């Protein structure tokens, strides 16, 4: 067990306003995640609010800043952070609701119109390959809709109209694997000054993505797709 000091961002509109940081000392073992620590703290302080659901990096609800970096708290091992003082704050570039909770409404208002289906074709297993005659399998899309990429994106920080990395990556997935979606309409949605052309290629989104969606490269994929489309129409 190692003693770690947690500095936790607290905010309640009109009550803890301006925000403050509460400090807790807690004994941590090698298994514990930042989310496990929050769960322990909440037993003694029921007013501590944060989002969480699956506890294994699959639902995408517990995105927050840990020592200033966007992570999913449930898969952020505390001792692996390598600091005995850990700061926990809400995601950036989203409306603050309470403590570590931000509103996901703006995220989904940009993301949902892409209408990326949840289910995609499965790729091959890491070892071995099912034989050819086996029918295709499906799996969930990799994007967890966690919002870490929007929090890390320097363009989103200054331009609220920008579609942002998550929606653009979803659009690229639809272009790659349409599954019945309207590809020309999706391309029209992203082919403008607030769409894929707004990206500055800072690649912060890909850096923080917890599930290797790599939105930065997906945005570049969209641009190449649009350019090659336009070139084709020139001739």
């Amino acid at each position, binding site marked *: 067990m190692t003693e770690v000091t947690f500095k936790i961002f607290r905010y309640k509109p*009109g009550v803890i306003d301006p925000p403050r940081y509460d400090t807790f000392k807690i004994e941590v073992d090698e298994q514990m995640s930042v989310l496990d620590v929050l769960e322990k703290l909440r037993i003694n302080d029921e007013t501590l609010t944060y989002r969480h659901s699956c*506890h294994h990096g699959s639902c995408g*609800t517990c995105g927050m800043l840990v020592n200033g970096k966007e992570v999913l708290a449930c898969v952020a091992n505390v001792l692996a952070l390598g600091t005995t003082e850990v700061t926990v704050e809400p995601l950036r570039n989203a409306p603050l609701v309470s403590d570590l909770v931000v509103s996901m*409404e703006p995220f989904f208002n940009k993301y949902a119109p892409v209408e990326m289906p949840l289910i995609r074709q499965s790729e091959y297993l890491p070892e071995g390959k099912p034989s050819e005659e086996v029918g295709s399998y499906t799996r969930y899309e990799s994007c967890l809709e966690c919002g870490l990429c929007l929090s890390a994106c320097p363009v989103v920080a200054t331009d609220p109209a920008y579609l942002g990395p998550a929606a653009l990556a979803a659009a690229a997935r639809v272009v790659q694997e349409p599954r019945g979606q309207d590809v020309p309409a999706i391309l029209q949605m992203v082919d403008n000054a607030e769409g894929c052309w707004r990206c500055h290629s800072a690649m912060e989104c890909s850096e923080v993505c917890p599930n290797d969606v790599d939105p930065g490269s997906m945005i570049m994929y969209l641009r190449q797709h649009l350019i090659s489309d336009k070139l084709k129409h020139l001739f």
Partner: protein
Amino acid sequence: MGKPHVVIVGGGATGAALAHDLTLRGVRVTIVERGEVTSGTTGRHHGLLHSGARYAVKDQESAKECIQENMILRKIAPGTFELNNGLFVAITDEDMAYHDAFLAGLETCAIPYQEITTQEALQREPNLNPAVKAAVEVPDGTMDAMRLPLRFLATAQHNGAVIKTYTQVTKLLMKDKTVVGVRVRDHVTEKTYDIGADLVVNAAGAWSDKIAAMAGVHVPMQPSPGVLVAVYGRWNNMVLNRMHRSGDGDIILPQRTLSVIGTSSWVVKDPDQLEMKKEHIELMYKMGAMLVPAVKNAPMRAAWAAARPLIGSESGATTGRELSRTFKCFDHEDRDNVIGFVTITGGKATTARGMAEVTANVVVEKLGLDVACRTREVVLLPHTAYYRRGV
């Protein structure tokens, strides 16, 4: 006359499905949930869309509920499930001894199945233990533990339900022996206020006995946690199960690019105090490797515990394995002479819609309404609609 108002305590799978059912029947619904929706047990389950095969021998009531609901969910939540089926495999002689009883159970519970050769099983799942002696395919599927209930919540919200998160019930408001509402603490505004109700439904899952105690009654619910381990690598595409009585570490579910091994089972008094048992993590790895040897060396993404709300025997369970996975609706008027208060507990994510139907039948009768259930047919909104309240 205005619509009757029902307050549902708990924003998990049960509360979500119940809110959907009641709003379709013309009831005004408010859900109060102390944290984020699905932050209790719901979000932490495996993600198994049960065919019922897991319970086909020992717990046939649950098995029948599962296959029935499995088929309904495919219709009302299209696009939500990975429908890759499940494979029950015998690895040891002990597993083989279970084979005939297993097939008989599948027949009794009307669960469709197909026995496939071990050669075909290994072709389809190349990472499966080559010692496999028998393989039976069933209509298991996988779901995203949060996104299915979000579809119920989204649809309920669209039909007028109010969902209050970070809103904790501190007291049930009583007038003599009648529950007339709830007192809540809003953890965002730090205000305490009362919500009146014609009826209160306790859908707090593993916390339901705590809520029942506020009305001075008790529900025989036993919180029974299990440990689950997610490892990197999608080692199988079908749900792999050991063909034996359900035990520790006998199921591996593919989930996105991960594989989830589950579970262990024990019992606790307080579902808020779930200590992570390190030896259970080791057990998941060891037993999981019996199904898929490669998981032994797969790096761990996360280990976590979730408290199942099982209908407990009053005499006290020890591991939780002996308890049925079925659900129970308690009308506290019949049971305890407390009016306007109903508890729904037990069950599973796969059966949440059916649990809601049974409970809503009780609720509308008590409210003097005569409206039939429509949740077998109504197709749910996408999960993203839950967050888009202004649209």
